[in-house]
């Protein structure tokens, strides 16, 4: 187990990169997912189709293929995902400034993939709002946007937060794939480097990687359980 102590900085650095990856991808996924959810509930049929097609495609496609696609199609489209190199951000997070584009490709793929699940979580939240609420809002003469903004969405948000949380947990776990796709320095790649190049024993290194991911996922899961239980009490 001395491997863990000796290489503490390696694991800590890996955790830091993975955390950055997760934060950026979560922001992206929440934005895109909300947009897709809006498309799916909009009154315009073609927009609904786009939303449905998006969710169907990304929910049924393995993340690995989405990752390959973002790494092959984006360069073919003439983009190196440079639009993610936002000046302010790259000064805060050193990784974004790095020349290798894989970090940005993985963020894009993770965001796109997770967005489909975010959309479904938000939609299930909207479905959970009792119809009477929206009908009452319409009856007192609120317009569609007012209805959404003042009545439906606040309640939908409340019941969507637990599924959204599990989506984000799943995304954190999925980010483990990044290391196998050329992202240097994240938890997976720095851990596996220790065994393949550093010649360290496998099991302690894996314990380290696992601890890193558990550190990210378990507290979130406990928090969600708590939110869920509190709400269950509150409803009664």
């Amino acid at each position, binding site marked *: 187990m001395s491997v863990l102590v000796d290489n503490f900085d390696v694991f800590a650095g890996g955790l830091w990169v993975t955390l950055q990856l997760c934060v950026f991808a979560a922001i992206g996924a929440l934005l895109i997912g909300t947009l897709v959810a809006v498309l799916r509930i909009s009154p315009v049929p073609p*927009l609904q189709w786009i939303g449905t097609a998006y969710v*169907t495609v990304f929910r049924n496609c*393995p993340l*690995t293929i989405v990752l390959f696609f973002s790494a092959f199609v984006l360069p*073919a*489209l003439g983009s190196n995902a440079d639009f993610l190199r936002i000046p302010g951000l790259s000064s805060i997070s050193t990784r974004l400034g790095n020349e290798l584009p894989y970090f940005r490709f993985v963020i894009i793929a993770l965001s796109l993939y997770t967005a489909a*699940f975010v959309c479904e979580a938000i939609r299930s939240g909207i479905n959970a709002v009792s*119809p009477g609420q929206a009908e009452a809002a319409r009856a007192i003469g609120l317009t*569609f946007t007012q209805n959404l903004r003042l009545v439906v969405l606040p309640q939908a948000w409340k019941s969507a937060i637990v599924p959204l949380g599990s989506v984000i947990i799943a995304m954190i776990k999925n980010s483990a*794939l990044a290391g196998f796709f050329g992202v240097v320095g994240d938890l997976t790649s720095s851990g596996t480097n220790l065994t393949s190049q550093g010649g360290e024993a496998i099991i302690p290194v894996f314990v380290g990687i696992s601890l890193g991911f558990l550190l990210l996922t378990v507290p979130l899961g406990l928090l969600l359980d708590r939110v869920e239980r509190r709400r269950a009490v509150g409803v009664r």
Partner: protein
Amino acid sequence: MNQQQSVLYDNPGPRARRLTLIGSVIAVIGVVAFAYFLVYRPLDESGQFTMEKWGPLVDPDNEVFSLVWARIRDGFVATLTAAGLAIVGSLVVGLALAVLRVQLKALRERRFVGLPAPAALGLRVLSWLLNTITRFCVEVFRGLPVVITIFFVATALPDLGVDLGDRLWYLVIGLTIYNSVVIGEIMRSGMEGLPGGQREAALACGLSSFQITRMILLPQALRIMLPALISQLVVVLKDTSLGFIIGYEEVLRVSAFLIGNLENPIQVYAVVGAIYILLNYLLSKLAEYVQRRLARGRKTKGLPPIAVMTPARAGADGSGAA
């Protein structure tokens, strides 16, 4: 969809219908323009639509067409083999785990009256210990990325001197570890979400705790949780794509090989992705169908809200991984 619309909007009048039509036209034009200028044109300019790249995949007269498709078919057969084995394995282990955890919980509530005090204390400590251990294992394996589990199984087992020969088994074991825990939790929450009267009635009939689980709780929970279970199967099927990381010859590894020779990554992945999407889409349609059948068959007499809510929480919302 319709039900949702009726909640959010009134029935459209002439003006709303006109607006919707205008919006639709604008949306279609926008999508077509987006697809043409931002996707089709750049791809065309970089030569992604030439027959040289697509030929091996779509043109039956191409000299490598049948070879390519034979490889892809083999790859999918390998993928489905791994998925099938992993599904059977995780269902069996998951059910056993759920039963075990429910039993342990029942055991924890017993006070072992009638046994001498030290023996009773020992048994209670033992049941507490077993309960904690299983809980810990569930939390750990559920919180670990499935890639890490698979990679760990594939590198650590040979290191420990367990050589399974075929890489298939490492993939199956890794997937089973992760998914059995998830399925176990789905089943457990299904059993715990059942109305308490079911258990009490069975107790009053004189059934033992194990009989109650086997004859009363499990069948009902299976039925309630069937849609969640099927969507978990979609997750298993998607996760088999991780096999390429440990060198299992499934469809992605085959694709990588094809791409090495044909140099058309976008095309090959598009085809493979489309097949994956089709397979999983059919599976999730099956889940929807089953759900509808069940909803019709049983006039939901106040199904406990927990039982309906928990599948999402248990990770069946497609979380899984890849």
